[in-house]
């Protein structure tokens, strides 16, 4: 297995980047931490931590309705964060960016608000076996409630979407295509642009789960041609509690709100309510405005470093790791074996050792990886395994950390005598 990466951009100054992340200099049981669980959540640079702290210490106040300076400053910072997200995604308008807690809430917002009005009995919802539970269970439950049908498109043995099958299913008709941009279980990147065009050709609305895409690669909603796109801030250097739904204005305008309450209204009488304008119509109650401001700071950080370069950096790590891990006897790697259309996620198993035992042994060496089904149970069933061990990279990871991972694989094998 020979994989190489031809960098298009200057390599990252990883040492400088690492210095921005306080947690990365910590030790666990005396050993320097090797954090390889970035697909679950990312670490935070001091720029983000400080942006949040500054709100609390300098001008905290509730947003949007305060006629005083603190409130105006906090509102401005919050809405500026929205503008940053809009620019990051190349959204046509900031009004199309709705802050939510996480990608999961984002999918649910679309499922409740758009789905319940638009999916009818007998309608077909096409999705894939790569989906995270968060982009699967909401559609499964919606389908159950309205009597629609969920069609799950398969992958090939390298973990790539069966494009033939997907096309065939779309041709049979679909009201909705719910597709992950990037698989958190295997690292596969789906050709969403082509797929979205096919879906639109049959009149389907396209929801893209970009939870693993926005943190790691440039994502342009206009170029993709999606109708809705969701992601979580906590996987992209921002705090948990931040995230967004992007949606086309025309769709969002038509949709009924999802959550009802303060701030999303324009006028309430005892008998009726008028909704606020976009995007606030979808933001009921006090937003997680400090988390959102943290997301704004994270977007700045990622943009400064450059998502293109981050992507290349991660691929260079995968390119380094794949052959070294793959050559270890008893190691099975799941997902793409090449660097094409791929991100820095490496899922594997060691024969004779359960992934949970692998992770425990890794933990003893301060190497943090995830073991389990990764909220991908249908995918695990497809792969025929109960669980995998997953290492996932980000901008601050290094070649040395790949070496550490390989070392602990050998150590685990030694402990278990396999």
């Amino acid at each position, binding site marked *: 297995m020979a994989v190489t990466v031809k960098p298009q951009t200057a390599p990252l100054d990883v040492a400088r980047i690492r210095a921005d992340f306080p947690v990365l200099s910590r030790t666990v049981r005396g050993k320097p931490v090797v954090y390889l669980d970035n697909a679950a959540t990312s670490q935070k640079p001091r720029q983000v931590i400080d942006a949040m702290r500054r709100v609390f210490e300098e001008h905290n106040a509730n947003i949007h309705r305060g*006629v005083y300076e603190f409130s105006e400053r906090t*509102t401005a910072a919050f809405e500026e964060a929205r503008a940053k997200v809009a620019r990051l995604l190349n959204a046509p308008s900031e009004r199309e960016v709705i802050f939510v807690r996480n990608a999961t809430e984002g999918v649910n917002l679309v499922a409740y608000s758009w789905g319940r009005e638009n999916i009818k009995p007998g309608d077909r919802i096409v999705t894939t076996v790569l989906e995270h539970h968060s982009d699967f269970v909401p559609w499964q439950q919606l389908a159950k409630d309205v009597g629609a049908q969920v069609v799950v498109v398969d992958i090939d043995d390298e973990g790539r979407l069966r494009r033939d099958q997907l096309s065939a299913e779309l041709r049979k008709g679909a009201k909705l295509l719910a597709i992950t941009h990037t698989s958190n279980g295997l690292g596969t990147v789906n050709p969403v642009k082509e797929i979205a065009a096919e879906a639109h050709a049959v009149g389907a609305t396209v929801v893209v789960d970009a939870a693993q895409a926005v943190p790691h690669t440039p994502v342009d909603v206009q170029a993709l041609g999606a109708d809705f796109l969701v992601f979580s801030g906590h996987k992209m250097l921002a705090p948990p509690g931040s995230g967004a739904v992007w949606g086309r204005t025309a769709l969002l305008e038509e949709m*009924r709100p999802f959550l009802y309450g303060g701030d999303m209204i*324009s006028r309430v009488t005892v008998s009726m309510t*008028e909704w606020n304008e976009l995007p606030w119509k979808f933001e009921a109650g006090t937003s997680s405005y400090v988390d959102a401001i943290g997301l704004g700071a994270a977007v700045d950080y990622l943009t400064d470093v450059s998502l293109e370069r981050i992507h290349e950096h991660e691929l260079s790590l995968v390119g380094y790791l794949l052959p070294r891990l793959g050559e270890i006897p008893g190691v099975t790697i799941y997902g793409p074996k090449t660097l094409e259309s791929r991100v820095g996620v490496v899922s594997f198993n060691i024969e004779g050792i359960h992934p949970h035992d692998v992770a425990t042994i890794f933990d003893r060496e301060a190497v943090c990886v995830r073991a389990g089904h990764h909220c991908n149970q249908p995918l695990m069933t497809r792969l025929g395994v109960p669980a995998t061990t997953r290492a996932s990279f980000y901008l601050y990871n290094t070649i040395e950390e790949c070496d550490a991972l390989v070392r602990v694989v050998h150590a685990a094998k030694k402990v278990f005598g396999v």
Partner: protein
Amino acid sequence: MDDMYRDYILDHYKNPRNFGELEGATHTYHDSNPLCGDEMTMQLKIDDGHVRDVHFVGKGCAISQASASILTEEVKGKTLDEVKAIDRDHVLANLGIPISPARVKCALLGLKALKGAAWGLTAWPGEEVKAK
């Protein structure tokens, strides 16, 4: 303290110019800011493309009422096209006081109603179907 509530602002607030129903109005538009309860109706008498007369009826804060009052003084005699061209920055500049972000909506309510009237709208595009 007085940088915002200058005498002429308070004067326009307390003695609004061109206030009250306009008889023979050709264009009328009502708007409001439910968040603070400001209400504003602008009425124009347009003849031969010119604003022959303009009145407003409103209630609300000093900023919204003074801004509307100042605006009515300005547009009298203007062509309809000139009225349509008045923009937000112009109104804010004309007010002559610093308007904080939270109060911009107040300052522009008169303009919004004026534009609605000038364009002959019955509701702002996009807002007709908002109520559910």
